[in-house]
């Protein structure tokens, strides 16, 4: 670390214990909104390498995602020891998938790095403050149509997610 405010160079030495130094990257990878019947109403991705991501590949992935969510939710509700409605997230060694489903069948999906905190509040906000206010209340938006064309919604969601603290930052312990 060096500062040049008074022309004096200050060097600090960090002693790091190897085992305690963990470098993590906080990232949001993508965000999906699915309608009840499986149409992907909205999709955005960030921080993912671009090779091989043709529009067709992305579309296939969306279909796969919906199929997974549908089956997973059914599986979880059937095998749960106590009655439950749905799941909030699942986590693998590489990523964490956060899920919100409204009683109207809308599915909000957010993929982040595996160490992110729960994003349920963010998903609720995306539903309440963005989808309801800028898509539903937009008379030019037809229900069930892709939301990409809904400019007010699109720009605000991108802004919200890209300026979120979990979006992309390096955390060094």
């Amino acid at each position: 670390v060096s500062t040049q405010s008074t022309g004096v160079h200050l060097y600090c030495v960090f002693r790091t214990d190897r085992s305690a130094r963990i470098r993590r990257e906080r990232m949001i990878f993508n965000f999906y909104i699915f309608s009840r019947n499986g149409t992907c109403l909205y999709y955005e991705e960030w921080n993912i390498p671009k090779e091989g991501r043709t529009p067709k590949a992305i579309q296939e992935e969306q279909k796969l995602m919906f199929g997974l969510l549908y089956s997973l939710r059914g599986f979880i509700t059937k095998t749960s020891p106590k009655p439950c409605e749905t799941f909030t997230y699942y986590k693998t060694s590489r990523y964490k998938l956060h899920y919100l489903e409204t009683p109207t069948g809308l599915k909000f999906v957010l993929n982040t790095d595996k160490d992110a905190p729960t994003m349920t509040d963010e998903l609720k906000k995306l539903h309440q403050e963005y989808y309801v206010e800028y898509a539903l209340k937009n008379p030019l938006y037809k229900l069930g149509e892709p939301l990409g064309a809904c400019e007010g919604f699109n720009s605000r969601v991108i802004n919200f997610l890209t300026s979120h603290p979990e979006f992309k930052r390096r955390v060094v312990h």
Partner: protein
Amino acid sequence: MAANKQKEGERVFKEQEKINAELFTLTYGAIVSQLIKDYEDIEEVNTQLEKMGYNIGLRLIDEFLARSNVGRCHEFPETAETIAKVGFKMFLGVVGSVLPNSWNAERTEFSLILEENPLVDFCELPDNYSSLNYCNIICGVIRGALEMVQMRVECRITKSVLRGDDVTEFKITLKERLTDDIPMGDD
């Protein structure tokens, strides 16, 4: 259960943005008058009001779910109380009541009464319009909203203050619970 719903209704109503009630009432009256002028046939006006309400209901349900803390209703009587105490309070500022004696044996039909109805303030129906269901838009809203949460219902007005009754009464019948259809893939 009704007491909880009432409290939830009050809470949501407090947080809602509000508009001038007279403006709302008069605007609605203007819409109905214009519909009558355009269609001239009262039955057609009733149908159009219901259709308009249906389209509103499809969207209104998401806002309702986002703002209120009600989760999925497990039984139809719970749905009835939610509509009466939370739904009407949130959007019209009035609380309805479900008539306990109006339930049928299978618990699929009930009557909901509104003692106060902001839509009909200042309104008088001339004799030649007696078949007009002035509040039919509400029937459509209920039908549209419930369809988005997997219930197909029929809603009609059975009592109207404009026709001399002292309350507005809606009869709501659950026709079918809709199930999710799995979309088949193209591959």
